C-alpha cells in the first residue's frame, strides 16, 4: 500500500518537515497525538500515515517530549507493530488504574481467545486473525447456518458479559460481537455502512500479553510445534 504513494507528495512532505521548526511539525502531528491521548492503539491498519510517522525515531522523540508534562510516553509492543501511550512515572493513582485495567483485561481474555479460535475454525484459516485480515459478519453467518456446532459456540460467546448480546438471533449476536471488538480497537470498520472489518495490530498486543502472562505464571501452555515434526522430514 505504502509503495503506491505519490513520490512527489512524499518529497514535499520531507521538505516541509526539514524546513519547519519543531513546533510547526508537531502541529501536523496534532491529530495523531490526540488519538494516542484518547487511548487508541495506532498501527499500520488503523492509520497508515500516522504509523509511518511513528516509525521515525525523531518524531517519536518529539512526541515524547510533548507528552512529558502529561506524564505519558509513547510505548510499543515487541514487534513494534502498534503504538500506544504509557505512564512515564508510576504514582499511586497510576498503579491503581493499571491494576483495574489489568483485571478487566484478564476478564476479557477468555472471550477474546475463544473468538480468535472461532474465526480460525469458522473461516478455515491457517492461524488466528492477524493484522490486515478482512472479516465479514456475512461469512460467519453463512458458516454458522451450515454448522450447528459453530452456531452454538457463537451463541455462547455472544452471551458472554464481554460481548453482552441479549438477542437469540444469529445476525444480532454477530453484530454485537463485531461492535464490541470495534469499540475495543481490535477491529476497524472502514465504511460505516459497509459490513466488513479489518483486524488491527492491537491483536498483536493481545497475543503478546497472553504470552507474557503464560511466561510469568509458568502456565503449561506450549506454542512451539512438537520437535518430532521436523525429524519426520
Amino acid at each position, binding site marked *: 500500500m505504502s509503495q503506491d504513494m505519490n513520490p512527489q507528495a512524499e518529497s514535499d512532505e520531507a521538505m516541509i518537515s526539514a524546513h519547519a521548526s519543531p513546533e510547526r511539525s508537531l502541529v501536523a502531528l496534532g491529530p495523531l497525538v490526540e488519538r494516542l491521548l484518547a487511548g487508541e492503539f495506532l498501527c499500520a491498519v488503523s492509520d497508515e500515515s500516522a504509523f509511518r510517522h511513528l516509525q521515525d525515531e525523531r518524531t517519536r522523540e518529539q512526541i515524547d517530549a510533548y507528552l512529558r508534562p502529561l506524564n505519558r510516553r509513547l510505548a510499543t509492543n515487541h514487534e513494534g507493530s502498534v503504538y500506544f501511550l504509557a505512564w512515564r512515572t508510576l504514582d499511586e493513582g497510576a498503579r491503581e488504574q493499571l491494576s483495574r485495567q*489489568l483485571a478487566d483485561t484478564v476478564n476479557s481474555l477468555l472471550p477474546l*481467545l475463544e473468538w480468535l479460535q472461532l474465526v480460525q475454525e469458522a473461516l478455515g484459516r491457517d492461524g488466528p486473525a492477524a493484522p490486515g485480515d478482512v472479516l465479514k459478519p456475512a461469512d460467519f453467518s453463512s458458516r454458522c447456518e451450515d454448522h450447528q456446532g459453530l452456531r452454538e459456540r457463537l451463541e455462547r460467546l455472544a452471551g458472554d458479559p464481554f460481548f453482552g448480546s441479549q438477542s437469540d438471533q444469529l445476525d444480532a449476536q454477530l453484530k454485537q460481537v463485531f461492535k464490541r471488538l470495534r469499540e475495543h480497537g481490535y477491529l476497524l470498520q472502514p465504511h460505516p455502512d459497509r459490513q466488513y472489518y479489518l483486524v488491527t495490530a492491537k491483536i498483536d498486543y493481545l497475543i503478546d500479553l497472553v504470552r507474557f502472562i503464560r511466561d510469568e505464571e509458568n502456565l503449561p501452555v506450549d506454542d512451539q510445534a512438537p520437535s518430532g515434526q521436523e525429524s519426520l522430514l
Partner: protein
Amino acid sequence: MSDAPSHDLESRLITTGVERLALLGKHAEALMAGYARDEVPLEGLSTTALNRLLAARILWRPDEQGGVKLAPKVRELIAEMLADESRRHVNADVAETLELMRSLVQSYREARDGGEYWRQEQQLLRLRQEVDDLNGRFADAIDSLWRRLNGDFGFVSRLGDKIRENERAQKQIVRLLDGLALIDFDELIELVGSDGALRKLLVSGLQQQLTQHYTSLREVQRRMVELMARFRQQQSRSRLVAGMAGFLREHPGFVPGNYARRGEVPALVNRATPLVAAGAAALDHHPDSRALTELLHRLPRPAQRPEPVTAAGAAAPQEDALVAARHQALKEEVERFYLSVVDRGGEGVSALEYRQEGALEWGEEIWLFQVIAEFQGLPRNEQRAFRLSQQESQASPYNHLRLIHDVVVQLA
C-alpha cells in the same frame, strides 16, 4: 557425402516423434487417469495400443506382475503443463548439461576445422537447444517457486504441510543456486575462444539470462523465508491461543499476579488512562467569531414546543426572575441608547444626558456601568463603529484612581 544419411536419420526421427506424440493425445484420458491414480487403467486400451505406449516409453511396467504406470518424464510433463505444484519437479541438472556442452563445443570445433559445414551447423543447433533447455529448466523452476509462494502453498490445506512444503522449496532454491554457481564463465570464455557465434551463445547470452535467474532466485528465497516466518508465527499463535483458551476454561478462577504493583512494572501492562482533549467555542479570538457566527446560523432550529406549564414555585426563585427581568430591561434600554447614537449620526451623545432626557429610572452609576459594559461586550468590529470617551477625573493627587463622571458615545 555424409549429408544424405544424416538427412535420412533426421526425417526418420521426425516421423517416429510425430507418431509417438500423437499417442499422447489419442490415449489422453487413460494417461490422465494414470496421473491421478497409482496405475493406468487398462480396460480401454488394446494390446497393440499398450505395446505402442510402452515402446514410446510413455508407460512402463515396474515389474512383470504389477500394473502399468506413467513414465516419470510424462508425469513431469503433465505436472508442468498443469502447473500442478504438488507434483511439479524442480530439476536443473547443471553439471550434466555443462559436461554435454563441453563435448558439443569440441565436436563443433572439429567440424569447423574439418570444414564439415553441415555438421558444424548441427552441433551449433544442439548447443543452442541445450542452452535453451538449461534456461527453460531454471525459468520453470522459478515459475513453480513463485506460484507456490504467491498461492501461500494453498495446494496443501494444513499449516504443518505448508511449513514442510516451504522447507522443501527452500532446499530446492539452494540446489538451484548451487547449480548456477557451477557455471564458471571464465571457463566458458576459454572454451569458446575467438568464435563469435559460440561467444554470443555461451557467454554474453547465457550470462545475461543466468543473472536474471540468479536475481529471481534470491528474491524468491527472501520471500520464502518471510513466508516461513509468517507460517511459524501463525502456528505458534494458533497453539498459544488454543492452549491459553483451554487453560482458562479449565481454571475459571485463575487470576495472574498484579503486575501493576511490582517495583518494575512490565512495559506491556503500562497503558495510560485515556485523556480527552476537550475544546469549547470561545469568543476571545476575534477572527474566530465569524466562523462561530456562521456555525450558529447553521444550527438546526429547535422544534416548536408548547410552553411548559410550570407549577407555582417558591418565593426565592421568583425574586431571581425579577432581578433577571430588571437586568434585561436595563440591557434593552442601553441598546436603545446605542441605537439613538447611530440615529444622530456623527454627533456625540452623553449617556447621562440621554438618561435625563428619557427620564429613565436607573441610577446614574448603574446606567454608566451598563453603557460601558455593553460597549465592551460588543463584537470587536461593531465596537470599532463607536467611539466611547469617558469624562473622568483623578480621585486624589496621591493615587491613580480615576472617577468616571459621564461617557460620551459617538459614531467613529
